[in-house]
């Protein structure tokens, strides 16, 4: 069972200048899964990730990467890790290749062959000998991933990897990450403040807010709870009445009627509307907003977005 866990976080806390920024965090990441780290701005995602990669030291608790304690077995732990924290900041005055060379020299047994491999993997063959100054953001992002992959890590940690990418870039990145997990068997930890991204990309997710993990679970479990159905019907009053007789109903300002989503029930409601002569113009599955999710998870309590 142990060998199946690539990252183990045990009651980690961090206090900076008497402010408790991370309060007792626990989670594990398993082999071959994409793990999402979801939270609003300032939730503590980056801070947690910095502790995972050894940049800052936890005030309390332990972190293990592939069974090696980051504090005690720093070198071994780091050998199994690849990461990009926040932006992929590389040396702008060196060429892409020399950047890779620089990091390869810091790793055991990484030679030119492997460097070539990762360059191909991220598709930078054309521009690899240009200086990084001349790279676009997307290319820097790819070079960042390339350097993180140099040591064939078992665990890849990416902090907001789609930050600043255009939709095509985001899709490409998503496919790439899924490929790493599915084909190479890597564990990937991805942080994001976008629910949609996590939903499309991850297998499991931890939701963090104000330095606390409020929930860990599979994406389908967590996100389907709050999934809704939105209807555009005509006449609207009649449609609402019909639906209300079957389930709970809300109305939005822009003229949609919201109900819960349930694979069993929804077709029945549809049939009932048709039967009453209500025209269905549109019907959509609606993802909950992050706000909705937090409200739900914290029982509508104080934990909203700051």
């Amino acid at each position, binding site marked *: 069972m142990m060998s199946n866990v690539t990252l183990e976080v045990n009651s980690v806390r961090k206090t900076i200048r008497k402010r408790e920024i991370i309060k007792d965090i626990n989670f594990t990441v398993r082999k071959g899964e994409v793990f999402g780290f979801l939270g609003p701005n300032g939730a503590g995602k980056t801070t947690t990730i910095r502790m995972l990669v050894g940049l800052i030291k936890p005030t309390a608790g332990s972190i293990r990467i592939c069974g090696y304690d980051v504090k005690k077995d720093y070198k071994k732990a780091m050998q199994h890790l690849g990461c990009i924290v926040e932006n992929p900041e590389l040396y702008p005055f060196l060429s892409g290749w020399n950047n890779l060379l*620089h990091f390869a020299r*810091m790793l055991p047994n990484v030679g030119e062959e492997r460097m070539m491999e990762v360059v191909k993997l991220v598709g930078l063959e054309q521009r690899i000998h240009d200086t990084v100054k001349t790279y676009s953001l997307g290319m820097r992002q790819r070079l960042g991933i390339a350097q993180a992959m140099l040591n064939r890590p078992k665990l890849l940690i990416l902090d907001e990897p789609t930050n600043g990418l255009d939709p095509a870039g985001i899709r490409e990145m998503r496919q790439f990450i899924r490929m790493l997990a599915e084909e190479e068997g890597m564990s990937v930890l991805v942080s994001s403040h976008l629910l949609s991204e996590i939903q499309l990309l991850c297998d499991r997710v931890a939701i963090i807010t104000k330095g606390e993990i409020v929930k860990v679970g599979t994406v389908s479990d967590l996100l389907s709870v709050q999934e809704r159905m939105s209807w555009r019907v005509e006449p609207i009053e009649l449609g609402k009445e019909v639906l209300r007789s079957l389930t709970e109903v809300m109305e939005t300002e822009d003229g949609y009627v919201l109900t819960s989503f349930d694979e069993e029930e929804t077709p029945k409601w549809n049939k009932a509307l048709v039967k009453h002569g209500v025209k269905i113009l549109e019907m959509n599955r609606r993802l909950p907003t992050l706000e909705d999710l937090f409200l739900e998870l914290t029982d509508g309590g104080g934990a909203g977005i700051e």
Partner: protein
Amino acid sequence: MSNLIQNEMMKLLAKKRLLIIGVIVAVLIILFTYAQYKQAEEQREKLGTDDWRTAVQQQIIDIQNRLSSSRMLDEWREQLQVTVKQQQYYLDHNINPSEPGAATFTRMFIENASSLFIPLLVMIVASDLVSSESSQGTIKLLLTRPVLRWKILMSKYITLLLSISIIVAMTGVLAYALSGVVFGYHGWNAPIITGFTVEAGNVDTSGVRLISQWQLLLMDFGLVWYIAVVVGTLAFMLSVLIRSTPAGMGIMLAALISGAILNNMVSSWESAKYFFMVNLQLTNYLSGVAPPIEGMTLLSSVLILFVWWLAALIVSFIVFIRKDVY
């Protein structure tokens, strides 16, 4: 470790720092060469002869005239008297204190550059070795490798030592090569007197001896290198402590300049001799110039600098190993 040092050297060379320093040095040397040339020419015109003895005699007379004016700080007076006595000694023994030639120019340049100019050049490298990684954010990639932090810092420190060695050599070579165009490439074997000791404004000549200029030149280089290492290490420490390169440079610059000022006025403040910046004129001990504070010796200065060096190094390593990187 050799890999890490090569990384650091690669970055240093890619940033063209040494090249920039080389250009600065070259420009300054050309300026000084020209100034020196002008001065020599003017002197020749004034004295009507090339004869160095006449020139030295005139220098002595000029200083004696300055000494005879009563409004003068005692320290200044003492300093001038020492100079007169040394010049007289050279004259009496028929040895030219500044044999014309590139070798003499190089020695003078390096002696004058030792307490401010070369430390400044070294700061250009030292100040951003660590802080540039912090401000660029690349430190996050550097410190998430399976390499212990002290090794990374050590590789940077060794790189600093290597660049200091290059900068010192570069200054010497450029000074010789450029000034030689004007003054001629000779003077290595010119006799030089060392071993003057100065005590209470008196020059003791009992320990003097004659060495060749190249010997003194090499010793000067050794001392200048040491000064550069100490100042470089202090700048390096600031680079670890402070994220912003300009702030670190500013602090160091202030310290060096205050040292230059203090040198002229601390003679009555004895504990000032524990400041590193008052001890930077090591080459003066060899040429027999009185130290700024009574009782300072070559050994005491070297030891005080050593303590500063060690402290700076220890602080750098402890802070770097322990600090949280945001």
